[in-house]
């Protein structure tokens, strides 16, 4: 293979806008070349990242979820044993709708009842029945009488995983017997909480979030699930539904008031530090206050910063290249 003198970054499409912004700044303000950033999705990123150590493998991967044990295993098998995990901030998962209608006020319970394939028997018995609800009003009499129609990420997406854990599972736990079930039979509980309807109320809408935004505009009855930055950029056309009474705003998410938010990460291959020029400097740029701070340019791009304390902790991790445990 030929020599490489620039950083190669792969991974999540959610982190891509932030990573590229940093890369651009880094390229402009340092003598190093601008890193190459590929948008492969978190899973694709780990696949490439964990394939081995060497110039032909990427140095950094972005992820919209934490690395999974099986991925760590792959990494280790391929000789990638020293990985630095850097948490960079949060992404809110919003349920957005068109501006043409008043904003919905949903609880996680509503969300669960509206979207789960099997819901607790409305009669109160401790068993589940196939989801009978057609309209939001069926779910909760306070909600408007419109058909349930939610455009959301496909099963392959990290956003969907996060949505299931945060919203659906949270909603399920609001039923007492389900909460107890969780302790008794975790598997069954998750099956109930994590299975989305397949009768058309929940629509897998692909990974292009701009497309969902435009579909929402065309169809005021529909709700869409996607990352906060798309809401931020299209605030004139769409609005975020309140979840458990909290509006998805920058402030609410960063204050951890909004219940649906997930952490974002990047992972560094320590073995490459010191041989591929610029890795440390790139990490330094990313973790600098002017980038990821509350006033930094990433916040401008829609990244919700970590709380101050966590941020400085993470910066230390990054500076010292503290390797995460591989079990």
């Amino acid at each position, binding site marked *: *293979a*030929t020599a490489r003198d*620039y950083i*190669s970054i792969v991974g999540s*499409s959610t982190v*891509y*806008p932030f*990573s*590229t*912004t940093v*890369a*651009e700044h880094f*390229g*402009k*303000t340092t003598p190093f*070349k*601008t890193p*190459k*950033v*590929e*948008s*492969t999705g978190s899973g694709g990123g780990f696949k490439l990242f964990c394939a081995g150590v060497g110039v*032909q493998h990427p140095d950094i991967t972005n992820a919209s979820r934490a690395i999974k044990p099986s991925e760590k295993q792959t990494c280790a098998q391929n000789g990638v044993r020293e990985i630095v995990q850097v948490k960079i901030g949060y992404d809110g998962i919003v349920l957005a709708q068109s*501006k043409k209608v008043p904003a919905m006020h949903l609880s996680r319970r509503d969300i669960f009842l509206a979207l789960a394939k099997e819901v607790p028997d409305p009669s109160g018995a401790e068993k589940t029945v196939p989801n009978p609800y057609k309209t939001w009003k069926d779910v909760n009499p306070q909600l408007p009488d419109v058909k349930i129609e939610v455009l959301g990420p496909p099963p392959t997406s990290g956003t969907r995983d996060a949505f299931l854990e945060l919203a659906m599972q949270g909603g399920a736990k609001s039923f007492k017997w389900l909460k107890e079930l969780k302790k008794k039979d975790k598997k069954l509980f998750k099956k109930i909480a994590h299975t989305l309807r397949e009768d058309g109320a929940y629509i897998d809408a692909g*990974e*292009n*979030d*701009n*497309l969902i935004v435009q579909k929402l505009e065309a169809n005021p009855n529909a709700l869409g699930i996607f*990352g906060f*930055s*798309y809401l*931020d*950029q*299209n*605030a*004139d056309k769409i*609005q975020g539904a309140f979840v458990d009474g909290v509006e998805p705003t920058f402030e609410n998410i960063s204050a951890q008031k909004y219940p649906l938010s997930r952490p974002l990460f990047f992972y560094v291959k320590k073995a490459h530090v010191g041989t591929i020029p610029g890795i440390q400097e790139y990490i330094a740029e990313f973790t600098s206050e002017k980038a990821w701070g509350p*006033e930094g*340019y990433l916040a*401008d*791009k*829609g990244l919700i910063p970590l709380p101050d304390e966590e941020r400085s902790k993470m910066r230390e991790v990054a500076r010292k290249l503290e390797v995460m445990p591989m079990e």
Partner: protein
Amino acid sequence: MESHSGIAAVVKKTLNRRYRAERRFRRIGLAAVAVGLLFLAVLFTAIVSKGYTAFQQTHVLLDVYVDPDVVHVGNLDSADYQGLIKASLRELFPDVKGHRDKRNLYKLVSSGAGSILRQKVLEDTSLIGRRIQIWVPADDDVDMVIKGHVDRSLPESQRRLNNKSLAWVDALKEQGRLEKRWNLTFFTAGDSREPELAGIWGATVGSFYTLLITLSLSFPLGTAAAVYLEEFAPRNRWTDLLEVNINNLAAVPSIVFGLLGLAVFLNFFGLPRSSPLVGGLVLTLMTLPTIIIAGRAALQSVPPSIRDAALAVGASKMQAVFHHVLPLALPGMLTGTIIGMARALGETAPLLMVGMVAFIVDIPRGFTDAATALPVQIFLWADSPERAFVEKTSAAIMVLLGFLILMNGAAVFLRNRYERRW
């Protein structure tokens, strides 16, 4: 007709019906053409109406004092030029106080303004210590407001620019310091995270290198394969297999070719990821079947009597083919190649698999540099949250279509010159 005897009488009976059928047939044909053209018109209108605004960019006129304390001969490269820009903004709006407001004020101009100033100073160091007037691009949010893509009457919370920022924008406009100008950056810059600094030149060059590889491999290879199969190959199991193979490859989804490229070119041969070389190779494999099939059809349409004539004066089979058949079939082969190239130019899916879907700021300078291609750039921009990328996406599509029309035009010209009926 006078004589109604014989055939005329019989034929006449059915004539009205037949002419009705004729007219119907003709009308169906015309309608089909109209439907095609209508689709084309709708598509183009949709794209152009969305994208044409991207060819202009809002710029801000600033009076910058090139402070010798900040910039001096020792730090020409790395001076804080953006700081100078900020200073000039503060001068324009001296009443802006408070950290938050100041930040909002700075956000009116692009973060790339500093490097424009830097460029200017580097070109002419005598500017140091002087006060100069300079047009710098406005931030994309300002641009969107000026272009009317954002409804100003919305409540403040639903806009990216708050009321104060809007007031500053209006003030600048009143002073004649805000102007929509021809967006040269769009055509000369590489990708950027800032919409106002992003351009398609990088992707265009990437596409160019990629297509160059594709064309220079697939046209000769495709022609050669078509010639072999049509003119030389014996009819046997092996050539049957080849034929089935080629037809089948034409039907293989492009994304599968991406998987192939990933496995073979990147993992097995270890060619550089994200490079036009690999992209070009993948697209070559993808377009080859199309070119071969079209090439064979073109060769088939050359009458055998031409081959006989050449052979009978003592031309070898090879000479007969290369002197007579191939030149006659070339226009048809060209059609196939255009179709193949057009497809290659607009192809996204396989490039995603070989790493060309990347953020690359630098303009590629060779076949092995990391690069993207135009459609991939479109794909990337289309998925970008920044509102200003919406018009950029459409504008990039317009440029891509422009190339396409140019290519088609040249080929159509060639083909029309040589088309014949036998």
